[in-house]
């Protein structure tokens, strides 16, 4: 695959290296001259000095035959324009944008960007999951299916503690996939009991999340 990456920060640099290792043809665009020099010492011809927002630069690096364009600069407006120009002007089939502000997720989708990746949001939920006392964390969002993978710690005062799954009124728009109890994993069946302090991993739709919270007696 031919992949063009816009933005040679840390993300762009490691992404380029990793994709090159996987055997792809990769071209990294970096507009800052100092940063470009540092990058070119290690990446050689895989990095070109130029602004990925500029149509002429993109033409020069052969955007017309690119399979994927990935925008990972530190500015959301730049990532948006890189992807939109690639998609609308050069008909690149797949565009991926890094989101610095998680709030821009919906806008980017609405504006035709194929995939958005939000490191800020991921870091937030990973840290949140490690904080003591947190009971409900979104680990991952499966965008196309509209589902979320949640981690829930069952509170000691949960109304369902001690009950079997079949006895609990779980939302139809979700399923409990895994329970971790005392460092052991349990793939739950209808007869599995939920105990206080269980770590429950569930797949839920956005509507199902609220119902699951209610069922488990967790509040944010």
């Amino acid at each position, binding site marked *: 695959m031919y992949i063009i990456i816009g933005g040679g920060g840390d993300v762009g640099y490691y992404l380029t290296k990793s994709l090159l290792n996987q055997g792809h043809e990769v071209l990294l665009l970096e507009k800052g001259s100092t940063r470009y020099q540092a990058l070119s010492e290690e990446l050689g011809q895989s990095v070109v000095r130029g602004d990925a927002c500029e149509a002429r630069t993109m033409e020069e690096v052969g955007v017309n035959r690119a399979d994927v364009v990935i925008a990972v600069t530190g500015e959301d*407006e730049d990532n948006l*324009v890189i992807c*939109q*120009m690639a998609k*609308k002007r050069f008909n690149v089939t797949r565009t991926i944008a890094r989101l610095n502000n998680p709030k821009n997720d919906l806008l980017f989708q609405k504006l035709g960007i194929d995939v958005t990746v939000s490191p800020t949001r991921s870091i937030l939920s990973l840290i949140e999951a490690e904080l003591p006392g947190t009971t409900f964390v979104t680990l991952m969002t499966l965008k196309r299916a509209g589902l979320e993978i949640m981690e829930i710690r069952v509170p000691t005062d949960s109304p369902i503690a001690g009950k079997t799954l079949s006895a609990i009124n779980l939302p139809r728009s979700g399923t409990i996939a895994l329970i971790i109890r005392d460092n052991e994993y349990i793939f739950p069946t209808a007869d599995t009991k939920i105990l206080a302090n269980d770590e429950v991993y569930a797949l839920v739709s956005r509507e199902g999340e609220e119902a699951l919270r209610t069922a488990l007696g967790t509040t944010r």
Partner: protein
Amino acid sequence: MKIVILGCGRVGATLATMLDRAGHQVSIIDYSNESFRRLDPKFGGETLVGNGVDEEILTRAGIKDADAFAAVTNGDNRNIMASQIAKEIFNVKKVVCRIYDPMRQSTYNELGLETISPTIVGAQMMLEALTHDRQNKAK
């Protein structure tokens, strides 16, 4: 008319002053408080400090019931993103976006954004002024 302007540089400040004088309700956003000094001392509109590609600040500027939105910051991409937020999220009827880069301008124009490129307009005016002069001399 209620108008929200993003960017209080020379163009933004002049535009805001002109619209205010003409009796329109103007809100102007800039990330620096200093920039508002460019406004006419009699400017009666609202000034807001903040990042214009943020829905919250646009909401505070009253974009929800604005009749028009103008993006005139120094950054082409910021103008493009803000204009698309105004158009697609807030459904503002009239959105005008300044884009210096002529190629970017033509692409977004094709995509349905109303754009003005000062590069092209400026060059055109210079060209006319220069050639007009030559024609006069030839006479």
